[in-house]
């Protein structure tokens, strides 16, 4: 097979979802729109089929599935575990390894780091949130080969199988795409709203941030640093909290870890970084034509402005027609921030 089966994100768009799955198509669309997603490449769904056929895994799976009662298959986790094992017992064919190794090498060169830690993510043609695996901090050719196969194998997790069974999809043949992308070496991350969510003031932007990865802010488990930025004057109002814990990579996943004492009470985002976030939010707002709710992260492996990366963006939800009490409080907030302060 000589057909191209690895695509860099910039070669893809939202129309590529049948080629590489939804996640990769989205990453392609964002890269194409000039939004700073982490760099990386996608394996087509055909690559999955090729692997399954060339290694003989397809036949083995088909045989096993045919032998098991369909109801049993969706109820008993042992069956899905067995099918995954079948897939994982096969190595990536040598010629496919060569192709992956070449592209992975290009990614390492791009960042300037050999054995660059990457995330290997599943990218299904249909959405099955959380049903298939994502591996973080995968390093070096061998690990990358293994994890690609494990992601393919994860198309047979119990949830994925159950989902296909209940939606009348083929159980034994479900090709998925794979994304191989740089793992963000997260200095800090958080959310940004390009509109003040309580008042709808488009001139005010809200940023919340913690050290480490974004799960540390999105989940709401800790009080993050809080910033209100005036988009016209660039003036920043900061409320810095004491951040004792943050989410960091751990093995092939993540975990909550203690923040060093001397960093706990420091602002985790610099003013220059905040200004980059404002610029990004304005670009996203223009691109999507409405205020955005953005998940972002700063990557230590790049210098500003390249260090700022988008994890996700979606339309911002704002409290409509805030009640009189909160309007009054908002006016008071503004009087304090724009008039009654030293300049």
């Amino acid at each position, binding site marked *: 097979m000589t057909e191209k089966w690895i695509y860099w994100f910039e070669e893809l768009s939202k129309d590529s979802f049948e080629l590489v799955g939804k996640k990769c198509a989205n990453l392609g669309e964002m890269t194409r729109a000039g939004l700073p997603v982490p760099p990386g490449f996608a394996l087509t769904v055909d690559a999955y089929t090729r692997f399954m056929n060339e290694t003989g895994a397809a036949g083995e799976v088909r045989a096993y599935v045919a032998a098991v009662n369909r109801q049993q298959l969706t109820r008993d986790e042992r069956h899905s575990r067995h099918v995954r094992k079948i897939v994982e017992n096969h190595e990536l064919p040598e010629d496919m390894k060569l192709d992956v190794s070449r592209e992975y090498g290009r990614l390492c060169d791009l960042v300037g780091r050999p054995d660059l830690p990457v995330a290997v993510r599943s990218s299904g043609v249909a959405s099955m949130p959380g049903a298939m695996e994502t591996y973080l901090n995968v390093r070096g050719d061998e690990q990358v080969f293994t994890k690609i196969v494990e992601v393919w194998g994860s198309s047979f997790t119990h949830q994925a199988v159950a989902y296909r069974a209940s939606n009348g999809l083929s159980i034994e043949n479900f090709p998925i795409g794979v994304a191989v992308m740089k793992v963000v070496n997260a200095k800090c991350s958080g959310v940004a709203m390009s509109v003040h969510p309580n008042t709808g003031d488009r001139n005010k932007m809200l940023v919340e941030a913690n050290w480490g990865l974004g799960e540390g802010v999105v989940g709401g488990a800790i009080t993050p640093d809080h910033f209100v930025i005036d988009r016209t004057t660039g003036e920043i109002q900061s409320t810095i909290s004491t951040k004792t814990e943050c989410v960091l990579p751990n093995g092939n996943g993540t975990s909550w870890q203690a923040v060093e004492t001397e960093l706990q009470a420091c602002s985790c985002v610099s003013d220059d970084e905040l200004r980059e976030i404002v610029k990004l939010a304005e670009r996203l707002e223009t691109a999507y034509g409405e205020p955005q709710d953005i998940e972002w992260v700063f990557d230590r492996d790049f210098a500003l402005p390249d260090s700022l990366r988008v994890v996700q963006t979606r339309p911002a939800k704002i409290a409509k027609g805030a009640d009189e009490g909160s*309007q*009054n409080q908002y*006016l008071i907030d503004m009087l304090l921030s724009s008039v*009654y*302060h030293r300049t």
Partner: protein
Amino acid sequence: MRTYEITPFEFDETADLQKYDAWFLDGTHSVPPWTPMFGWSWINYCRHGMMWAAQKLQLPTCKGWDWRLHRGGGYLAVLVVDDPGEIAAREQVFRKQLEPFIEDYDAVWQKHLDELQGYYGTLKAFDIDSATNIELLDHMEDAFRLNRRMWEIHFYFMYVVFGVYMLFEAMMKQMFGIDDSSPEFHKVLTGFDNKVFQVDKKLWEFGKKAQAMGLDSLFMNNPPERVGDLLEQTEAGRLWLADFREFLSEDGWRSQRMSEFINPTWIENPAPAYMSVRQFLQKGGDFDLERERARLGAERQRAEKELLDGIPDEQRGWFTKLLRLAQRSGSFSEEHNHWLDLYTHALVRRALVGWGERLVAAGVMDRVEDVFFLIPDEIRRVALAPEWHDLRDVVADRRAEWAAWAEEENPPMIGRVTLEEAMGTLIRSNDPVVLKVVVGSLPVPKPELKADLYGTCGSPGVVEGRARMVMTDADLINVEEGDILVAPATYPSWTAVFALLGGVVVDRGASLSHAAIVGREYGIPVVMNVFEGTKVIKDGMRIRVDGNMGTVTILND
């Protein structure tokens, strides 16, 4: 008898420049120099009122201003709060203090106005002529207490109202790109009635009445100082006067110079009011201001709608509130002069004149006005046995000093840093009253416009006309229809003359200065802060005033 210092707040070149880098002259209020009595009252009560309001509100940035008296000039320094912890603690209280203003401004204002009017009623009802010296002394103390309270209320409002106005300016700029040099900015703030304009309207009506009674030529052909006597000589004149005195008993509590006691009130000497009547007669026609206000009001509503339609639903709520409050700010800025400063000072003057008459009768001094060269403690010392005292030497010394002060202008700043550095400190305080009243926005010369003077826009529009220099009240009589008034500043008692004017140029001023507010209500161009207008422009020159660009061009000599 030894002449004492007027107050413990006399400027001390050594001690007062240790804590403070610089002191600024309050040129708006203390030029020409104050009499000792007024200087004493300002330094004590205005200073107290600012500190009281800053404390009551817990203003996060400032504890009011300190004041010193130097050669009859008031000098100020801002008491900035520097400690971040203290600022944060003050902010918490300040937030709460702001709530009533934002929830229901009108109710807060009415409550304080009612309180003051209660005092005014009591003081006005006091019969000075039949009072014993004890009663008159108590009356004087009551008047001083009112003075003190007036300043508390004055700054309790001004610190909030001017802050709101500044926020409105900032938001208009951020949300719509409109600053206060734009006609669009002023459209949403103008077209409101207020007490100052109501008084003007009554004066206009008295002009109409004089015309109907055949008295108009009497006003037009005689100096205002003689009008009263001439009116007394005819039946029609006496009838007109009877009504006019009734009007004055309510609205005549003002003298031509707001920040002084020494000038007679309209009740004592109505000449300035006759001058206003004459100006309206000269202008003829309908009451322009009323028609103008109806037009401005309609225009304001259109402009408001346009503004509010252009913002997202979510923002309309708080922005509408801010807009309403900013509209009140404009009204307060103009109206408070009538209800607070002018009224109170007139009543303090009345009590002091009462004492002046008694002290002259007792031989303590020679002229009633000598009382303004004393300080309250000196009146207290002699009040209950005046015949045992002689204050002629004190008065003579102080009068001589006062005359000398007026000869030599007070410096705009006394300090140990440059004017630029001191201005920088002042501007960084971000104190709304400093910025809106004392400093004003500094004009930016725009050489490409090839104008002779560069200022800031007070009221939009362009006009050409004859420059008419008005340095004092006495010059108002020379103003003719279409003239452009050129003055150091304009005063609340001058509003009637705006009906005649084509435009206004003033040396100093900010967007809430008198000339700007009244100019906008009359719909005539005003350029402010040209600094040297009264020096560069000569009486009678033809000039062009561009209120949109903030420039003045001399067309010919």
